[in-house]
């Protein structure tokens, strides 16, 4: 599945106002609730936070995939954000994380969740210039960039 097909410009948030793990998760939760994609931003924040407690979703090379599952969701939501100066996200390689792919999935669809993670990792692997995304501050430009690779 192509990464671009899983998100939309309204779910791309360059330059998140975040400085640590909670503020990244809060920024995504508030924005997804604000876009009426999830009913309860606080509940989403708590679910994302609980998942981080099980082990950081910082998968290395400056990338994290904070995620959780919610019961009453119709489809997988993929939101993308960046913090170019980097955040200590307790990543597996201990590197600061700049690029965040936030995946919120329906509880009943583990395969759709995996397909989203697959699309993210495939895009990162195939796109040598993926870090150029950090220099972009226009959601539409980032959205177009996702079709590469």
């Amino acid at each position, binding site marked *: 599945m192509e990464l671009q097909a899983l998100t939309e410009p309204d779910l791309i948030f360059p330059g998140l106002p975040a400085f640590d793990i909670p503020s990244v998760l809060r920024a995504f939760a508030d924005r997804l609730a604000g876009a009426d994609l999830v009913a309860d931003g606080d509940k989403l924040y708590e679910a994302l936070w609980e998942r981080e407690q099980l082990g950081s979703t910082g998968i290395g090379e400056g990338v994290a995939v904070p995620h959780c599952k919610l019961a009453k969701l119709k489809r997988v939501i993929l939101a993308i954000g960046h913090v170019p100066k980097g955040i200590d996200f307790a990543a597996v390689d201990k590197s600061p994380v700049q690029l965040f792919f936030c995946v919120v999935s329906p509880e009943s669809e*583990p*395969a759709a969740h995996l397909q989203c*993670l697959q699309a993210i990792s*495939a895009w990162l692997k195939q796109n040598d210039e993926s870090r150029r995304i950090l220099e972009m501050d226009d959601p539409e430009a980032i959205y177009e960039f996702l079709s590469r690779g």
Partner: protein
Amino acid sequence: MVERDLKITNRLGLHARAAAKLVHLAGGFESDIALVKGGDEVDAKSILGLLQLGAAQGTDITIRCVGSDEDEALSSVVGLIEDKFGEGT
């Protein structure tokens, strides 16, 4: 080189936390450890690589180990997957 075919049986498949566990385990071995699904072969010491497989419950995979501790590596990785990554279901 040693290898073994098996099936991903845990309900959630090879998701991020399961991949992290596998990477942690694989990193303890000198051997190169690969997971193969269809024509795709990925490094079991890379979360990004493992997620690229998108291996849901029921997926057939091959584990391939090459190196001085390949037998131990293979049995450990097979053990983790057969144990459903410790998830119970």
